[in-house]
């Protein structure tokens, strides 16, 4: 009897595992691989639910840890089990290879008034250039997330500047003086010699535009006045830039262990009151959003946004920008929901979708939303919800349909006014120079592979850091750049020249 009962129960168990449960819900589910910050909550997110309702689909998002998104994306692409929509985040040689491998849907024939009217209307030819694959007859395999972003800035501790009687620096010399003062004059007033000027963020800002704007440097894809191409690190201004960093390091104005930074640890140091300036990918909006974290440590802090540094004798910084592309979205070539995926991606170029993703749901993430001013008023609880359920990273296109800013940063009208004032002030001191990146040109991937396998990239990183830290002399650094680094990049420069990049 026992054996009979055990057998029946086992069979029931097996049957329950194998029996498919018929679903009464026929809504299409679109899967998406998305790059989202750690603070973003995907589970039971009312914004994602509202997004799905708006488009008549269910949206399932996989969001790997942001710091290792590229690794996870690569593994998923290699596995062959792709979601319907993928945030690619790459328009270089890897993207071209994936497109050539047939992983992504060719969108060239869909990007028209009938199939994708919104994307067709919003995206310009210049922006679409970034996602064309030259090796595949300039076909388009993803759509770019274009961003109208607030001005890039260097963020300073205003309370430190005020205490020391200093102004926001605008040139390298002024910056050096301010960093030295932050290091030596006890700006936090605690009587302990425990502060530095800033930290060089090599992974995120080795040659960041807000700093290099003050030196004679241009991207490798941009020719000089005579039409000659030269890799950036071999240009005259690059050694001047390294010398400037080295001088500050030797004067102890830079965090001496900057080489341990692997991501944005310099921001942690800034919030903790250890350094007085940060520069890597800091935009004016951070002037407002950074408030909360710094306040945990020092309630008397104040921040101010400074413009990119400009050369001595000039008034404005010439800052090189790619067309403002912040990643790209592709559709799985083998998706089973082609029509829905096309509509989904196209809808991402409407204000309705991006405002939903950026501002959220009324009553949950804001009380009122000013459509013209691009800001929302939130209670404390709504602010907490907004930080969980909304993010700039979640947008498909980070701009309005009219190319204006999607969001004016701030939680109150006063903060929004502060943001706009700072943004306008920085804009007056910045001249944005647009250039195209050559990452997806044919042959670029192969040349980069040769350079990596020869150990040039690693050796460059090692010697650059050693030079800044004063462990090697100038001759050794210059000799490496001239005799090993530049020759290794010669073929790459020839490719840019052959394609008349940025002439």
């Amino acid at each position, binding site marked *: 009897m026992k054996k009979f009962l055990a057998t029946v129960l086992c069979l029931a168990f097996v049957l329950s595992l194998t029996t498919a449960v018929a679903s009464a819900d026929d809504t299409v589910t679109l899967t998406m691989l998305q790059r989202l910050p750690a603070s973003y909550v995907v589970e039971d997110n009312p914004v994602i639910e509202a997004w799905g309702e708006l488009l008549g689909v269910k949206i399932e998002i996989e969001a790997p840890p942001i710091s290792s998104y590229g690794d996870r994306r690569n593994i998923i692409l290699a596995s062959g089990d792709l979601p319907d929509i993928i945030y690619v985040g790459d328009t270089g040689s890897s993207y071209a290879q994936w497109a050539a*491998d047939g*992983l992504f849907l060719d969108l060239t024939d869909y990007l028209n008034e009938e199939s994708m009217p919104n994307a067709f209307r919003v995206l310009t030819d210049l922006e679409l250039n970034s996602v064309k694959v030259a090796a595949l007859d300039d076909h388009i395999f993803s759509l770019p997330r274009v961003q109208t972003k607030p001005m890039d800035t260097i963020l300073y501790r205003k309370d430190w500047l005020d205490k020391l009687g200093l102004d926001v620096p605008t040139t390298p010399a002024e910056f050096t003086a301010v960093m030295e003062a932050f290091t030596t004059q006890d700006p936090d007033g605690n009587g302990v010699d425990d502060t530095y000027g800033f930290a060089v963020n090599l992974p995120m800002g080795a040659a960041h535009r807000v700093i290099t704007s003050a030196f004679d440097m241009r991207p490798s894809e941009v020719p000089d006045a005579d039409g000659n191409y030269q890799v950036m690190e071999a240009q005259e201004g690059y050694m001047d830039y390294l010398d400037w960093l080295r001088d500050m390091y030797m004067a102890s104005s830079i965090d001496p*262990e900057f080489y*341990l930074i692997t991501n944005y640890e310099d921001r942690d140091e800034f919030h903790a009151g250890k350094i007085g300036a940060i520069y890597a990918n800091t935009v004016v909006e951070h002037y407002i959003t950074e408030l909360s974290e710094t306040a945990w440590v020092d309630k008397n802090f104040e921040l101010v946004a400074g413009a990119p540094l400009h050369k001595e004798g000039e008034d404005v910084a010439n800052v090189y920008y790619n067309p403002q592309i912040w990643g790209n979205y592709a559709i799985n070539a083998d998706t089973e929901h082609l029509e829905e995926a096309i509509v989904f991606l196209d809808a991402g170029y409407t204000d309705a979708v991006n405002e939903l993703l950026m501002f959220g749901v009324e009553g949950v993430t804001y009380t009122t939303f000013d459509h013209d001013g691009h800001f929302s008023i939130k209670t404390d609880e709504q602010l907490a919800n907004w930080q969980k359920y909304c993010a700039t990273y979640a947008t498909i296109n980070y701009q309005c349909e009219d190319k204006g800013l999607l969001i004016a940063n701030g939680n109150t009208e006063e903060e929004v006014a502060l943001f706009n004032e700072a943004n306008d002030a920085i804009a007056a001191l910045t001249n944005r120079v647009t250039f195209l990146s050559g990452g997806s040109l044919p042959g670029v991937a192969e040349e980069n*592979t040769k350079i990596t*396998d020869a*150990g040039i990239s690693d050796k460059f990183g*090692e010697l*650059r850091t*050693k030079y800044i830290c004063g462990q090697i002399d100038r001759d050794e650094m210059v000799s490496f750049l001239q005799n090993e680094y530049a020759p290794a990049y010669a073929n790459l420069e020839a490719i840019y020249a052959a394609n008349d990049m940025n002439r």
Partner: protein
Amino acid sequence: MTEATAKKRDVSFRTYFWKRRWLYLMCLPGLAFLIIFKYIPMYGVIMAFQDFSFKKGIFGSPFNHFAHFQQLFTSAKFFQVFSNSLLLSVTRLIFSFPIPIILALLINEIHLKAYKKTTQTLMYLPHFLSWIVLGGITTNFLSMTDGLINDMIAALGGQKINFLGSTDWFRFVIIITNIWKEAGWGTIIYLAGLSAISPDLYEAATVDGANRWQRIAHVTLPGISNTVVIMLVLAVGGLMNNGFEQVYLFQNDLNIAVSDVFETYTYKIGIVSGRYSYSTAVGLFKNVIATALIFSSNRIAKKLGGATLY
């Protein structure tokens, strides 16, 4: 063989198996894990001989024969990685291998049971911490700006040492942190071996007038010599493995010349750069060397008359 004998053998095997059925059942999950996660994925090694295409997959991608290996052996970076890996693992073997043995001998000499158990537990604990945690603790200890070790050095009148940003100190940091984390856990197998030594041998040695050190030298060490040899054979077989997490956490621009080992190299070119075929070729090369090492060390152990792995 007569039919009766064959039948008798068959019956005895079935009886043998049936008597121990629960032991075999207990082995099943481990065996399944081994087959599913270690043997089945082995087919992926053919990627080393292919130009892997995401779309075509492993079975559809074209073969390029030994192109990746040619690229490997002509790459300057590869030889740097190879020498770094070998140097680091040999140094680690020389300094880390004896520590668990010494610790096990010391623990074995503790007679107070409660003290012995407490010591063992405290020694095991670092093993359960992840390298992320230990790496963070080590970084804080060794920091030049406000690390405890450098503060002590400065207080004693010395010059601060850049432990984390120096090629000279990198291997030292790796070995010390490895000993800190794993030495306690490594004592388990030796303590098991020590507990199998008959107390009669110790009594006989004591009667013969042997002191503590002589008992260790002539009773304890010979008693665990087989265990030591087997562990050494395994350690030599794992000579090409340096572990990814630990090395990656302590790697930076200033020590990259000595810190780039196979694990971090294959991570960077494989996962980060997406060159799966090439990184598989690197991994295959490493594993062929490791297999050769384990066979040779086992053979040497056999020739010396000691215990062997197989």
